[in-house]
C-alpha cells in the first residue's frame, strides 16, 4: 500500500515568478533537502513520484496550492510539514500535510474550480456613476457580464492570435469586500473545461467592458480550489 500525502502550500514573493515546470524541480530539491523518503519512478530516468495540481500563471501568488507525494514509508504529517518548512526557499510555505488513501489521490478528479481573489482599484469610478453607488454599479456590471452567452477575446498563443470564448471558463464572479478604493472580487474558474485559462485575461475583459477606464487590477491571488460538486 502506498503512503500518499497531500501537501497544501502557499507560493508568494519571488516564487510568484517561477514557472510550473521550474517549481516542480525546486519543490523536489526541497523535498530532498528535507530528506523526505519520496518514492522513485521506475525507468531510465528515476524521478520523485509527485503530482502537482493545476499550474499557477506566472506572476500570481497563491494561498493554497496542492501537491500529492508518494512516500516509501509512513511518516507523521506534522513532522513532514515541519521538516520541509525548515528548508524552503523564500516564498514557499507548507500549510498542511495530510495522509490520503489511494482512491482519493487523483488530483484532477478532486479539483474542479480555481478561485481567485482580485483587488480592483476603483479610484475615480464614482464620478461615472451618478445614480447609484460604486458597489451597486459594479454588481450590475458583473451581472451583465455573466449574462453573456459568449465572451469572445483574442488570445496570444504559440500558434499566433486565436479567438477564445471565455464564458464557459467562468463559473462565478462576485464582490466579496470593499475597502477604501479597493474592491475585492472573487472569480471562480472552471479548470476542467478545455485546459487552463489565465484569470487576468478574464478580469481584463471584464474591465474593458465597463463604462470607465479608471479601473485597474491592484492585486490578484489564487485562494485555492473547490472540489467537484
Amino acid at each position, binding site marked *: 500500500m502506498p503512503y500518499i500525502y497531500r501537501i497544501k502550500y502557499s507560493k508568494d514573493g519571488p516564487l510568484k515568478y517561477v514557472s510550473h515546470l521550474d517549481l516542480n524541480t525546486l519543490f523536489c530539491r526541497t523535498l530532498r*533537502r528535507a530528506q523526505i523518503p519520496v518514492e*522513485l519512478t521506475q525507468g531510465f530516468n528515476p524521478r520523485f513520484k509527485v503530482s502537482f495540481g493545476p499550474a499557477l500563471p506566472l506572476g500570481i501568488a497563491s494561498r493554497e496550492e496542492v501537491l500529492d507525494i508518494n512516500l516509501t514509508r509512513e511518516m507523521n504529517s506534522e513532522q513532514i510539514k515541519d521538516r520541509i518548512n525548515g528548508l524552503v526557499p523564500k516564498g514557499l510555505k507548507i500549510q498542511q500535510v495530510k495522509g490520503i488513501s489511494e482512491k482519493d489521490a487523483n488530483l484532477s478528479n478532486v479539483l474542479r474550480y480555481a478561485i481567485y481573489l482580485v483587488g480592483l482599484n476603483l479610484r475615480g469610478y464614482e464620478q461615472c456613476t451618478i445614480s447609484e453607488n460604486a458597489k451597486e454599479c459594479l454588481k450590475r456590471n458583473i451581472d451583465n457580464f455573466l449574462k453573456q452567452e459568449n465572451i469572445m477575446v483574442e488570445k496570444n498563443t504559440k500558434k499566433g492570435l486565436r479567438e477564445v470564448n471565455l464564458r464557459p471558463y467562468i463559473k462565478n464572479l462576485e464582490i466579496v469586500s470593499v475597502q477604501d478604493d479597493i474592491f475585492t472580487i472573487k472569480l471562480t474558474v472552471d479548470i476542467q473545461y478545455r485546459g487552463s485559462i489565465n484569470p487576468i485575461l478574464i478580469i481584463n475583459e471584464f474591465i474593458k467592458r465597463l463604462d470607465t477606464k479608471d479601473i485597474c487590477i491592484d492585486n490578484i491571488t489564487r485562494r485555492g480550489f473547490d472540489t467537484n460538486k
Partner: protein
Amino acid sequence: MSNKTSKEIETILFKEIIENVEKPGRYTGKEYNEITKTGNVEMIKFALAFPDLYEIGMSYPGYKILYDIINSKENALAERVFLPYRDMEDLMFKKDIPLFSLETYRSLSEFDIVGFSLQHELCFTNVLHMLKLGNIELHSAKRNEKAPIIIAGGPSAFNPEPLADFIDLFVIGDGEDIVKEIIDIYKTWSNEGENRKKDNLLERFDRLPGVYVPSFYKVIYCHDGKIKSFQKKRKEAKNKVEKCIKLDLDNANFPVAPIVPNIGIVHDRITMEIFRGCTRGCRFCQAGMIYRPVRERSKQKLLEIADKSLANTGYEEISLSSLSSSDYSEIDSLIEKLVNKYCEQGVGVSLPSLRIDSFSVQLARQSQRVRKTGLTFAPEVGTSRMSKAVNKNVTENDLYQTVQYALQEGWRRVKLYFMIGLPTEKWEDIEGIIGMIKKVESIGKRVVGKKFSLNISLNAFVPKTHTPFQWIGQEDEKLLLEKYNYIAKRIRSRNISYSYPDTKLSILEAVFARGDRRLCQVLEEAYKMGCKFDSWREYFDYNVWEEAFRKCNLDISFYANRERKKEEILPWDLIDCGVSKEFLWLEWQRALQGISIDDCRLTKCNNCGLQDICKKISEMKNRNQGKIAKQLI
C-alpha cells in the same frame, strides 16, 4: 541613467517591471542559499559581475567559489550581477534604473569593487555594456576614487590587452587566495581619509603576485603594427606577471552550499571540481596550458564535498568536473563510492569529459547505471598524422573500438567533435575526418541498426595565447567554409546530423584572443554602434565590427590570419602562465614535424616550465601521506 537607492530600485523592479519581462526569475534573486549580508560592520562591497545572462553565469563553478570565499570574510560581502536580456534592458532604460545586484538590488556603481569573470573573448562588449548600464565610466583613467575599482579574471584574462583601457587590474590564475588580499588592501586604503589616491591603491595591488595593472605600462608599436616594446610607467612595475597557483586544493575553499536557482540554468547540478589542470598537452588547447600543473582533490575530500553539497542543496545530480575526468587517479573508486551511496536516492553522477578508451566508457556505464543518453567524444582530427601534430594522441582504432564498446553497452547516440583549420591540415586530413565519420556510422549501423544516431560537431580552430599554436595565422575564411561544406556534403545520411559555427564569429574570436591594446578602441567603437552579446547568433553583426575596424584604421587579418615570427613581441608576453615560451615554441616545431610527446604524468617530465611547482606539489603530497601514515600507526 540616474542613480537610485536599493529601495527605489526594488520598488520599481517589482511594481513596474517584473511582470512584463520574459523569465522574471532571472532578476529577483532570493534563491535558496543566497547570502545577503547585513550588519553594522563597514564591509567592502564586492560585485561579482558576469558578462552574460543569469542562466549562464550561474553555471560557472569559479563564480560560485568566489561568492563563497568573499562572503565568508568578515569584512566583505559579495553580490551577483548579471546582464539583463533585451526586454529587461529596454524596461530598465524606460524606468530609469541602473544595473543592480540580485541580493540587495544595489546599483553597480555603489560597490567598492566590481570583479568581472572573463570566460571567453566574445563577452568583451558585454563588459562595457555592464559598466554602461551600471553608470560607471568605461575608461579606467576617467574613474576617480569614488568609482568602484574594476577587476577582471578568468581564462580570457591571460591576454588582458584588448580590455586594458577599461579594467583597473587583472588577476591572473587561481583567484582563491588573492581575492582576500585584494579586499584587505582595499579595506586599509578606504580607511585612509579623504585624500587617498586611486594610483596609490593600484600600486599596492601591483605588489601582489598575479596582479597586472595595465595603466602602469605604455605599449610602443612599430610602423607595421607589431609591438616594439612595453614601457613601464613606474619602475616598480613588474617585468613579468606570474599567475597565482593554488597548490593544495584540499585546503582551498569549495562551496558546499551553492545557490539553488529558482529557474532552470544551463548547468543545473552540483559541479564538483575533482582536479585542476591537465597534462595531456593537446597543442590547440589553452585550458590545458594555463591551468597547469595538475592538482587533485583527495578522494576523501571529494566525498565530503559531495555529501555536504547534496544535503545543502537537494540537487539530483552531481558532475565530476575537470578537463579530463577519467584521468583522475582514483576515478573508478570515486565513482563507485558515489554511485553506491547516492544511486538509491535517485541522485545521478555524471562525467562531462570522456577520454576515448573503453576504460572511460566503463566509467560512464558505472556512473549512469540506468540512464543511457548520448556519449560524446572529441577525436578532433581525422588522421594519425594530424593526431600527432596536435598531440591529441588518439588513434583511429581507439575511436572505433571505444564506439563499438559503448554501443554494445547499450548507448544509441554518439556525438563527435572535430576541429577544422588546424595547422598543417591538408585535404587528405579532411578526407580522414569524413572516413572516420563513415566508419563510425557503419559500426553504429552494424551494432545498433536503424536507431543509431551520430551527431557531428565541426568547429573552426581558433589560435589561442599561451599555446604552441599562438604564433600561427587562423585559416582563411573561404577555405574554412569550403571544408565545412565539403564535409557536410559527403556525410549526408539519415543517421547523421551535423553542425558548424558561424565562421565570422570564429574570426572575431581569433582577433580578440590574440589582440593588443589598440583593440580597446575597436571594442568601444563597436559597442557604441550596438554590438553586444556577440556570442549569440541573433545579436552578432559582423558588418558592424568591420566598420569599427575601418574607423580605427586596424586590419582584422593582421590579428586573425597573420603568422607571427619567433622573435616578435607578443601582446601577452608580460603574462607568465607558468609554461615557458621556449617550451611552447619547441612544441610548435614538433607539431610541424609531426612529433608527439607523452603525458608527463605517465612517463617523464617534459620540462614545460612548471618543474619547480610540480616538485613542491609532490613534496607536499609526500608530507601529507606521511602524516596520514603516522596517524594510522
